[in-house]
């Protein structure tokens, strides 16, 4: 028995897969977490590429903490959903693309967050944002979009 077969036999997988509320509860949490993470990150990225300049970049320091709470919620609910069908997910190409995109998007978000912490006040004074920050904003939108699209495709592009 390999690790993924073992995961599928675990008590968590049993609860998620077989109880009445396990799967819907985890799926609903995953939706709520997505709205929080991607919602806030999309707003930040739109602001970084020049939309609604009246909202200061400094205000995103607090908002990003909330976004990370959503990220943790989705990591946990995602792990729970994974265990229920571990052997299927681990061989699903869209799932692997999704996880890799989120991994890169998470690193990108952490880098943006530390840049914001250092420079938000300076950037809010009306200077042009560095090109690198705009590139990171566009990469962020792209990576999270890939995560949404690939995540949705898990149910449609079955493993052969």
């Amino acid at each position, binding site marked *: 028995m390999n690790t993924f077969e073992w995961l599928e036999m675990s008590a968590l997988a049993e609860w998620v897969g077989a109880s009445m509320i396990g*799967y*819907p509860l985890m*799926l*609903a949490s995953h*939706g*709520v977490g*997505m*709205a*929080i993470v*991607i*919602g*806030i*990150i*999309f*707003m930040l990225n*739109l602001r970084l590429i020049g*939309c*609604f300049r*009246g*909202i*200061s970049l*400094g*205000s995103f*320091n*607090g*908002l990003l903490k*909330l976004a990370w709470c959503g990220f943790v919620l989705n990591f946990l609910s995602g792990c729970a959903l994974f265990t229920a069908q571990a052997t299927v997910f681990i061989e699903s190409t869209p799932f692997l693309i999704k996880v890799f995109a989120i991994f890169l998007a998470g690193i990108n978000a952490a880098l943006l967050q530390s840049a914001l912490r250092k420079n938000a006040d300076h950037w809010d004074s009306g200077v042009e944002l560095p090109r690198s920050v705009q590139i990171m904003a566009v990469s962020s939108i792209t990576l999270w*979009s890939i995560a*949404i*699209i690939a995540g*949705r*495709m898990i*149910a*449609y592009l079955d493993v052969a």
Partner: protein
Amino acid sequence: METIIAWASSTALSIWVVDNMWVWPIAETLHFFGLSLLLGSLLLIDMRMIGWFKRIDIRATHALLPLVFIGFAINLATGILFYFGDPGRYTINIAFHIKMILIVLAGLNALLYYWKIDPVISTWEAHGNTPLIAKAIGASSLAFWFGVLIFGRLIPYMGTG
């Protein structure tokens, strides 16, 4: 309900959704993008109206309203495709009924925003506290829209009760 289902199933739109297997997954993906735009912009507007995140200039949250409408428009359009793609399922589904009621309540709450908040928000102190009515409208909006999201997710599990 039988009549509604029979009518919806016979429309050209219904036949188009059923006959093209790629419509459903593409519409679902777009529904998620719309949801992220709608709830992302509302999170900023409503949490600031509640009185949290005071670093956000409350007068500037007005500039986020177009995103709320774009997100809603995407989800209304894709939502109509889902309904007509499977009317027999949605028409009698309890979670779907609750979701629709919550959308109506969220819409009425938005009217209240336009009546009570929109005309005066530009005169408010940028980083100050907010009046009780703004807190109530902001909190209701988040409760209704997250309810919409949760009950939407529960449609496959709640069935006809």
